[in-house]
């Protein structure tokens, strides 16, 4: 019987949740790295017991951890994220130019085939790569050359939070950056171009359809349809069927199209999930009801999934890296909240139960299936 392992990063440490295929009875292990912010902890598809964790804090900065035994033991790897050449400047809140400054690693994306190859998305926004299991990191500087001087940090920081490696083209990658937008490379990261056509940010940007500057919160893709992307923007849920060349809105009947994460079902490439949040100024669910919304039509038509979720007095948020799916049949869906709950649905979202209720605010959730 397969083992399910859920990796949870929180404001005060990492936790590892374990169950079997039933996903009913869980053990909770942790905190690992207690007291530290774990923006992301993830496993390596090519070597599932190799885990990486981004460990950071205001006092002591960035630490990178790696485990080769599924989280039993950890060793530090390099935390030297040095921007290529002269770092240059980006736009600051007052319109002036501000030097690029490394703050933390937001997202880690291991290669699906090479356990030593891993990408890191950082704040201030940039993309780094390691080909030696995290012992050294090298920036892919072409990304910041795409009008980086016009990027401006949003409220959560100017973070590169989404990295998608195209499953059918090793030279194609997508990244997303808060308050900068979505970008694509077709040459392995040497050159990039914005892929934001169709996004509209009427109240956030002076030019609503600007080439860069859109506050993209998360992007997802099903591996069987590498040209179809789904995006949760600051406001609006969007879809592209041409690898980001153009986007159209699929918010449909959502109660709010503001939110942070978006995910796609493991076996149904047209089934997607979002967690609507009231607004940019009210980061909690509409009407105090925690509802995951599912669309089986790739957007536009959405249904509320509520069974097992609190439907009154609930004012938590679900952050952009805190929604995940597993690959079992039926597909498991997981999310963590800023209130410290981690919920699981073992039936594609129809029914939910809390795995754990009182963790620190959850920053990231990833699911692994082990043989």
């Amino acid at each position, binding site marked *: 019987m397969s083992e399910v392992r859920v990796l949870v990063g929180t404001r005060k440490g990492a936790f590892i949740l374990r169950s079997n295929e039933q996903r009913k009875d869980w053990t909770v292990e942790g905190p690992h790295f207690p007291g530290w912010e774990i923006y992301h902890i993830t496993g390596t598809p090519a070597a599932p017991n190799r885990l990486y964790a981004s460990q950071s804090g205001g006092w002591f900065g960035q630490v990178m951890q790696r485990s080769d035994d599924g989280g039993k033991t950890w060793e530090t790897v390099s935390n030297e994220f*040095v921007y290529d050449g002269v770092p240059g400047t980006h736009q600051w809140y007052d319109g002036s130019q501000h030097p690029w400054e490394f703050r933390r690693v937001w997202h880690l994306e291991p290669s699906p085939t090479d356990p030593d190859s891993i990408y890191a998305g950082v704040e201030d926004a940039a993309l780094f790569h390691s080909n030696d299991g995290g012992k050294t990191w090298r920036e892919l500087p072409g990304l910041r050359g795409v009008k980086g001087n016009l990027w401006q940090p949003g409220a959560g920081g100017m973070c590169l939070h989404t990295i998608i490696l195209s499953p059918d083209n090793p030279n194609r990658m997508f990244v997303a950056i808060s308050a900068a937008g979505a970008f694509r490379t077709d040459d392995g990261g040497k050159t990039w171009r914005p892929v934001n056509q169709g996004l509209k940010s009427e109240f956030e940007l002076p030019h609503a359809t600007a080439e860069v500057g859109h506050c993209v919160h998360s992007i997802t893709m099903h591996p069987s349809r590498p040209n179809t992307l789904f995006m949760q923007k600051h406001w609006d849920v969007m879809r592209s069927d041409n690898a980001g060349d153009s986007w159209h809105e699929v918010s449909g009947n959502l109660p709010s199209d503001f939110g942070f994460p978006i995910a796609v079902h493991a076996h149904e490439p047209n089934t997607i999930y979002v967690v609507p949040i009231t607004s940019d100024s009210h980061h909690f669910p509409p009407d105090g009801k925690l509802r995951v919304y599912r669309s089986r039509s790739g957007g536009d038509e959405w249904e509320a999934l509520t069974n097992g979720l609190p439907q009154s007095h609930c004012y938590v948020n679900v952050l952009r890296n805190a929604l995940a799916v597993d690959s079992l049949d039926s597909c498991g869906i997981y999310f963590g909240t800023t209130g410290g709950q981690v919920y699981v649905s073992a039936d594609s979202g129809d029914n939910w139960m809390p795995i754990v209720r009182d963790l620190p605010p959850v920053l990231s959730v990833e699911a692994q299936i082990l043989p």
Partner: protein
Amino acid sequence: MIQVTLPTHLRALAQVTGPVELQVDEPITQRAILDALEAAYPMLRGTIRDAVTRERRPFIRFFACGEDLSHEPADVPVPPDVAAGKQPFRIIGAMAGG
């Protein structure tokens, strides 16, 4: 031997439970102590000083012999009692609450 005390999080990271002892060549300065500390405990690189600029991180303080040495130049000799191993060089996480 130079005695160095670390804050809780860095003791956990370095996998030590108490003060660490370091052999530091003369002249014994803040920079020399921190260089020796990072050489002995490479997992601490970047957590006390910026990995690139080698400047003290903003919320780190250095105390010794009842004095705050945080703003002393890195290449000035530390107090004689620290250099003699009689008093520890204390690395502190600054108060940063609200």
